[in-house]
């Protein structure tokens, strides 16, 4: 019997790198319609990300955090949620938040240095991108706990990276979720690096999924570049949570092709050759495309239309973003408390008095 950790946590895959379906687990549910929906959302995310990188290069936004290569992990998981569920993204998860209904204009505004970027559309339970690593994991446990107490069937899904599993907050979040049996899905995107630190220096554990054992919750490892594997495994965890069966940990194996952020130079710490190779062999978009071709779902004209439509929506969002020149300075003061406190009020008045004299 093979009892190695890797064999206890095999990497679940439905579509391999060549676009072949490697098992029949979800055969009946994998339809042309689903494949097309995935393609639409993923190509949108990819174009979104490239737009972000370009806007930064042109100085139209500030530092930007790219996610190219991680589209299947983000879109597959986001689409497993329903309206009213909670999503807790990091700074790298705008692929997921846009697929879950965040405002494109606001997502761009975040990177342009506007607090409006933290504000989701009415009715969408999307937390602002969490910058302090792992801190958001506890919040997801908390919102899930609240839904359980209220008797709602809503679930909370939280994104975090491989590096985040080193923080105390990760372990506290999973332990609380386990102890109180809350409807939370801990969705890890293992992209192999935390800025410059490769995962083998981040941890000696062979997998992230195995960390679930310590909290006695289900832990699975999926091929994070296979959108079908991501989607159906996440859906399973979501259904369990919705049915009151408690939290799960999902480790999605993926890769960021580019820099950690637009201020980072990855050649300092890794051979970018590996990124090129992974793009050749494991790219989530190419894989879906190959699968669709093999199934006879592919239609070149349709794909072109989808891309054109995505570009048009992105251009519109950028135009909207660029209409916003500056926040009203009052924003700085007006939302610190729900009821006025004199120091903030006094400082606000002094600020505007100073401005009017200039």
């Amino acid at each position, binding site marked *: 019997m093979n009892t190695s950790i890797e064999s206890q946590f095999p990497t679940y895959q439905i579509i391999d790198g060549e676009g072949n379906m490697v098992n029949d687990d979800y055969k009946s549910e994998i339809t042309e319609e689903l494949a097309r929906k995935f393609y639409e959302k993923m190509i949108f995310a990819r174009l979104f990300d490239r737009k972000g990188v370009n806007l930064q290069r042109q100085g139209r936004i500030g530092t930007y955090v790219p996610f190219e290569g991680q589209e299947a992990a983000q879109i597959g998981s986001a689409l497993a949620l329903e309206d009213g569920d909670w999503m807790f993204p990091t700074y790298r998860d705008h692929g997921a938040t846009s697929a879950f209904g965040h405002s494109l204009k606001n997502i761009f505004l975040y990177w342009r240095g506007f607090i409006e970027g933290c504000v989701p559309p009415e009715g969408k339970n999307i937390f602002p991108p969490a910058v302090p690593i792992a801190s958001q994991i506890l919040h997801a446990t908390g919102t899930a706990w609240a839904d359980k107490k209220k008797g709602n069937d809503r679930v909370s899904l939280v994104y975090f990276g491989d590096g985040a599993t080193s*923080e*105390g907050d990760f372990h506290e979040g999973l332990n609380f979720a386990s102890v109180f049996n809350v409807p939370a899905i801990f969705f890890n995107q293992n992209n192999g690096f935390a800025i410059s630190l490769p995962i083998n220096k981040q941890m000696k554990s062979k997998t992230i999924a195995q960390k679930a054992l310590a909290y006695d919750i289900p832990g699975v490892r999926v091929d994070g570049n296979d959108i079908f594997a991501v989607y159906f495994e996440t859906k399973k965890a979501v259904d369990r949570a919705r049915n009151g069966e408690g939290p799960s940990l999902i480790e999605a194996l993926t890769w960021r092709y580019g820099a950690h952020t637009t201020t980072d130079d990855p050649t300092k710490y890794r051979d970018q050759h590996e990124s090129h190779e992974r793009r050749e062999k494991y790219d989530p978009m190419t894989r879906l495309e190959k699968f669709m071709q093999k199934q006879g779902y592919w239609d070149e004209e349709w794909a072109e239309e989808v891309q054109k439509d995505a570009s048009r929506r992105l251009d519109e969002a950028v135009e909207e973003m660029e209409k916003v020149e500056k926040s009203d300075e009052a924003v700085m003061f007006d939302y610190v408390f729900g009821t006025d406190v004199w120091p903030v009020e006094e400082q606000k008045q002094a600020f505007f008095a100073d401005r009017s004299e200039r």
Partner: protein
Amino acid sequence: MTVAINTKKMTLVQAVTDGLRTMLEEDERVLLLGEDVGVNGGVFRATDGLCEAFGEERVIDTPLAESGIVGTSIGLAMNGFIPIVEIQFLGFIYPAFNQIMTHATRIRARTKGRFTVPMVIRAPYGAGVRAPEIHSDSAEALFTHMPGIKVVVPSNPYDAKGLLIASIEDPDPVLFLEPMKIYRAGKGEVPEGKYTVEIGKGNRLKEGEDVSIFAWGAMVKVAMDAAEKMEEKGVSCDVIDLRTLYPLDKDIIAETVQKTGRAVIVHEAPLSGGVGSDIVSLINDTSFLYMRAPIERVAGFDTPMPFFNLEDDYIPDSTRVQKAIEKAVSF
């Protein structure tokens, strides 16, 4: 202060690197620890080349956990090493707050000196570089209020290296804050080899008679600019770069305000509970009867540091400081 002979022109961040290199060479007990400080050389390149030069046993890429970094460094320090910890941005120090507040700062006191924590925590801080949220906090006052840790902030390359070496040689924990905004804002002459700038001593940058201006870190430039503009209007300013925020240089504070009878304090951190309040108290304690005008504070607001499209509205600028000076002298 020992004086080295040869000098080199370098930026503030290069002076930090030079200080770290000097002490890694000088003292085998010195270790560098932090996120991305090794192979990558730090996200601001403050530890560039040091891992190559001194090896992975001394320049250590740690897992991503600030409480872990500071907590294990306390153990390293108690057991014979001098850890220099990098917190990637001051805004990410909060997970380590517990370790600093409940242990690093009081192990000497709790063991009557049997165990000590000679450790330096370095952190880039402050606004003005259009960084994403949380990266721009000025949280120095959280630490000046902590009994048992010194807080040091250089404003130029020479002081950065000298104060860093003094911090490393200090027998107790030191929080060493590096103003990001001026990491690369021009070069200054920095002596080669080892020298120190004494902790707890401010520095008079400009001699004047009418008003004393206190600042530190990136605000020193703003204070100097305001002083020069006011000089043109005939107001002569005594500008003090405090350099250490705990313990404050009580002597220089008393001496300058007893000469001028007026004070303007400039800091980027929120007004309430800021280090400015400590300076006001010291002036009150030492020089009450010398004062000819209420003390002015020009500070950040009691709001979270805003997103970067509003950061210039938040950060005290020369105009605000000039107005405060005018108010003080025309009282």
